[in-house]
């Protein structure tokens, strides 16, 4: 995770913001904008929507900063705001994408997949390929993978923010990785074999 070189920890910055140095919030935004934006992109396909929601998340976080008690990492606390905001956004858009078992989700997923099939001929970088494969997963699977690998959260932290037992998170992560592997083999088999032969 990128860390802006201020020499201050998140908790120190928050204490100073609460004392009136609101300009320091920019440091937190710089530090966590990619993390938040990526997580939001797991819920929505549109970068424009993701940017708008991310902006809203930071505003909400700023307003409720006094509620951050420092018992967990700031990124963990921030994720709870991300999740609530994304779910609210999806509800507003009348898109229920919280469960892979949901019929509508499957329809959406199929539409997304067919779109990706058409674009699969295009050569993709390693980074873009994995991100696109993650986006083919259900939002729940994508969230777990993103939090674990890109958000660098432990199973305990993911469990805390998702309201799940760490063992359940572990099982979810295993399954999500399994599904990701299937997606990559199905849609990016050529790229995967090229990468493996590198």
């Amino acid at each position, binding site marked *: 995770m990128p860390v802006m070189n201020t020499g201050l920890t998140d908790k120190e910055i928050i204490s100073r913001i609460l004392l009136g140095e609101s300009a320091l919030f920019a440091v937190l935004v710089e530090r966590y*904008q990619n993390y938040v934006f990526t997580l939001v992109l797991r819920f929505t396909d549109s*970068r424009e929507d993701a940017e708008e929601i991310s902006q809203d998340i930071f*505003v909400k976080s700023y307003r409720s900063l006094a509620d951050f008690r420092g*018992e967990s990492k700031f990124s963990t606390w921030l994720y709870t705001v991300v999740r609530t905001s994304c779910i609210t956004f999806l509800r507003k858009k009348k898109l229920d994408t919280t469960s892979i078992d949901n019929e509508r989700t499957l329809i959406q997923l199929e539409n997304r997949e067919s779109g990706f099939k058409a674009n699969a001929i295009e050569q993709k970088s390693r980074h873009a390929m994995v991100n696109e494969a993650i986006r083919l997963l259900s939002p729940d699977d994508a969230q777990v993978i993103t939090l674990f690998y890109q958000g660098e959260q432990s199973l305990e932290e993911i469990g805390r923010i998702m309201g799940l037992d760490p063992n359940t998170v*572990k099982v979810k992560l*295993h399954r999500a990785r399994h599904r990701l592997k299937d997606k990559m083999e199905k849609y990016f088999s050529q790229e995967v074999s090229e990468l493996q032969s590198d």
Partner: protein
Amino acid sequence: MNTKEQMEERLWDYIDGLSSPEEKTTISALIAANLEWQRKYTELLDIHQLMDSTELEAPSMRFTKNVMEEISRYQVAPATKTYINKNIIRSIGAFFLLMIGSILIYFFGQMQGGDSGSSPQVTQFSQTLQNNLNKFNWSKIFNSTYMNVFLMINVILALVLVDMYLQRKKQQSSH
């Protein structure tokens, strides 16, 4: 015992560093000796490294500026816990304590004999209380469906609160 799924689970734990030292040794030996384990391990490790190397997506260059412009219109709200008036919580607690106290007094009043050591004032008070309580038709209250539902809700709420309290304690102790 070693189905394909179990093998993958054990290997993922090994890759994530979640295996116990004994399990780690066992898996290392299996990878070294068994071709199937070796092949699966290489496959999963490739995926792990691929995911590990991915970067986060970045929003537009103006993102921080937009956020800062937006927050300049707001102020940090006071912490949520200060919204909850402690007097309300204390009143609810006092109400339940009073209820429990009344029930206990009633049961003690029902006890017969064995009071030879208590003072005459206590015995008199106990008898008066018992007479008054006996006059009251308790069955009307406790046989009522509404009262039973009310009591049941209270019990469930109490269990939920205890569960929340214990989970918070557990989380605090794990930090």
